[in-house]
């Protein structure tokens, strides 16, 4: 079957790729574009390790076809920082030791960014429900929630 030519924007830069019709966006990112920060933990949308932001919406890239990226604006973990300056969420994750193995971390950070983009002042409960689609087996979530709440406060200038 012929491959599909896709033109899109990833992390603020124009990008194009060829993909099979059945190829997932996660496979495109990892295998065609060498953006391996998005992880496959389940391939079924249950763990959130492959979270990306597509036109402002939080998406599991394992549940999206590569071809659906056409014309979209996409943010992956590689595009969260501003050049050499870490995003406040990244910095707070480091300061709060909110990661242990680090495998779920890219997805959790992308999901947290999508949360704070939509709601700069989440309650702890809102943060917990928003992140309920991102499995972390190491931390028990405690320090993740602390880091997200602290980053939100800092971004609000508190």
């Amino acid at each position, binding site marked *: 079957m012929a491959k599909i030519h896709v033109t899109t924007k990833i992390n603020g830069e124009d990008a194009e790729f060829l993909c099979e019709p059945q190829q997932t966006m996660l496979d495109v990112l990892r295998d065609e574009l060498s953006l391996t920060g998005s992880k496959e933990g389940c391939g*079924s949308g249950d763990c959130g390790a492959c979270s990306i932001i597509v036109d402002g919406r939080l998406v599991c890239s394992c549940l999206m076809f590569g071809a659906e990226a056409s014309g979209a604006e996409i943010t992956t973990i590689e595009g969260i920082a501003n050049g050499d300056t870490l995003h406040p969420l990244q910095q707070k994750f480091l300061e709060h030791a909110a990661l242990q193995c680090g495998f779920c971390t890219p997805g959790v950070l992308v999901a947290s960014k999508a949360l704070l983009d939509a709601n700069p002042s989440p309650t702890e409960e809102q943060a917990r429900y928003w992140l309920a689609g991102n499995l972390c087996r190491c931390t*028990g979530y405690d320090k993740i*929630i602390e880091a997200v709440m602290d980053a939100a406060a800092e971004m609000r200038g508190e």
Partner: protein
Amino acid sequence: MNYLGKDVQLKVVGTRPIRPDGVEKVNGRAAFGADVAVSGMIHAKVVRSPHAHARIKSIDTSKAEAVKGVSAVITGADLPDIPSEEAFVGEGPANFREMSHNVIARGKVLYDGHAVAAVAATSAAIAEEAARLVEVEYEVLPHVISVEEAMADGAPVLHDDMFTQGVDPKPTKASNVAKRVEFKLGDSNAAFSKADVIVERQYKTQPVHQAYIEPHACVVSYNPDGQAQIWCSSQGQFMVRAFCAKLLGMDIASIRVMPLEIGGGFGGKTLVYLEPLALALSKKSGRPVKMVMSREEVFRGSGPTSGGTINVKIGATKNGRIVAAECETILQAGAFPGSPVGPACMTAFACYDLTDVTAFGYDVVSNRPKVAAYRAPGAPISTFAVESAVDELAQNLGMDPGELRLINAAKDETKAAYGPTLKNIGFVETLEAAVASQHYTSDLGEAPKGKRRGRGIASGFWFNIGGESSGATYVNEDGTVTVVSGNPDIGGSRASMGMMAAEVLGIEVERVRTIVGDTASVGYSFLTGGSRVTFATGMAVTQSAEEVRDDLCRRAALIWEIDADAVEWRDGHAHPAGENAGKFDPLSLSDIAAKSGRTGGPIAAKSSINAQGAGPGYATHICDVEVDEETGHVAVLRYTAVQDVGKAIHPAYVEGQMQGGAVQGIGWALNEEYIYNKDGRLDNPGFLDYRVPVASDLPMIETVLIEVPNPRHPFGAKGVGEVPIVPPMAAVANAISNATGLRMPNLPMSPPHVRAALDAAKA
């Protein structure tokens, strides 16, 4: 030397610096198992058994081999047939022959998901398509899933050459019971006559998976000169090397293993699954081979830990002194022997100072995946039962359950039922802190209509181990320092290694970078497991840093042309001491590094040790729950973990171990289980149906760190990673009992089970 004295001022150890590998883990650049690519690499997939138990009559690979793009297909016949040989693999015994047969089936498949063949092709999609064309003809055999079925007379036998060990006389008939173990102190049977109150009950736990979020993955390159390189995510690069050498009949020097970042393990990556297959495929195809498991394969073909049936009997006097205790633990081993029944029995009563106690158990095979280590293997299973029984005893005696534990708590010089005399333990301190905590003394608050609230407390023990470890400290030309650890960093150990070296050298931790060495760049280290790395590898790193510090003093003496004895190291500088004090300006580490060529060459030291004296870990957890009487749902409202950690090198990562372990235990208590259908096939091999705790299930996990230093470690460290998973199941069960008056003896305490128990109590 050690750094434990009251006059020792620690500047780095005990602080919370950012981990040296942190930034690349928050920006997506850290390379995990599936993130590596090698020139010319192809991809492979495993063909797995759809049957719980079947004889393999034939395997026809011709159709798969004919697919365009397929480079190699292997079956069990492509791996050497190796003899039975015991291997110590971290947290339990194993056998190389059985390991080989678990990696790829020979003759029979023993569980749904057992590997029977593997296919390598130019893409993962082609390999998957070709794998479906491998034709395996099976003769389906009767299967057994539960231990009760497996132990019954006339049960289908998995291994017709397996005779129960540890019973007298030795059986003449093969069975599914691999062995019986027993640990005994005094005469428990007779001592029950002294008891005023006796509690006795049967408990059951389900197998649960380690459920690391990163599936197993590797890239293996076998070269025509007989040398191989392996890039993989594991709990031990030296473990992977040794097992691959053994399973493929290669020598150890011909294999180099590059440890990649590991996306969680919890014991489940202390074994090999894919690497030997990828090695055989690389050899056969002449190409580097990449293999990555799907989540379904992880559930069907790796881990989990055992489910168990536990019978507990405890007797006490009316003033709360336990006078006799017995525990029988029957554990599922999966398809091959090797459940953690030994540690389950040994840990069962290790929290208590008892004179008459018996713990015995059975290791039983059935048609499930071979179990792998999972965080304090065995201990959470027996402890769930014992700590539930202790709670019931407190209820029957009308005593506070914390007080009852304090009356019976193990302390220094207690002789444990499993053998040793305990030393430098902090169990009583964890109980005292728990009982006095704001949490334990707080009011539960009023439950909303239709719900009931309760509080539970439970304790736990884990041995912790030391063992063989290597570390190295290198002073770089500019006075920065590189530390090499022989152990994969599974939760922040690069940080703790670097902190200990920085403390010894008296420099800022940011000037020390810790890396994890591959098998050719650092001395042998036993795998990351048993809560051993900060203790044992930390000791090796500390020793290498001390050798470097002593060498720095010698170099300064050479520069100053005085005796080395007349130099002392302070605050990252060499100072002239004694009669030379004040005669020369201090030399910094950078000054000495810059002149190293003139004082004998590069400054470096390596240390390879067999660390002894790991202090055991004790923990006490407090849990508040709210039980919904209509749905049977149990919400955890508040949770506190109190633990003796020896000395917290990096307290934030110690807290993280306690919180993560507690939450895994909450999942084990409330949700997680393997569900098999009548055909012996796993019905829930995915995160949707095998539900691990998510953020919205949980409150903050409060932590209380008790520091009773371990004098056998330079900074007093004890292992901290495993004991946090030991108390939670009983803490939750005891809270449910407190809330509802119901004793829940079976895990998981999921809504249908709790609702059924509530209904039964009403009826």
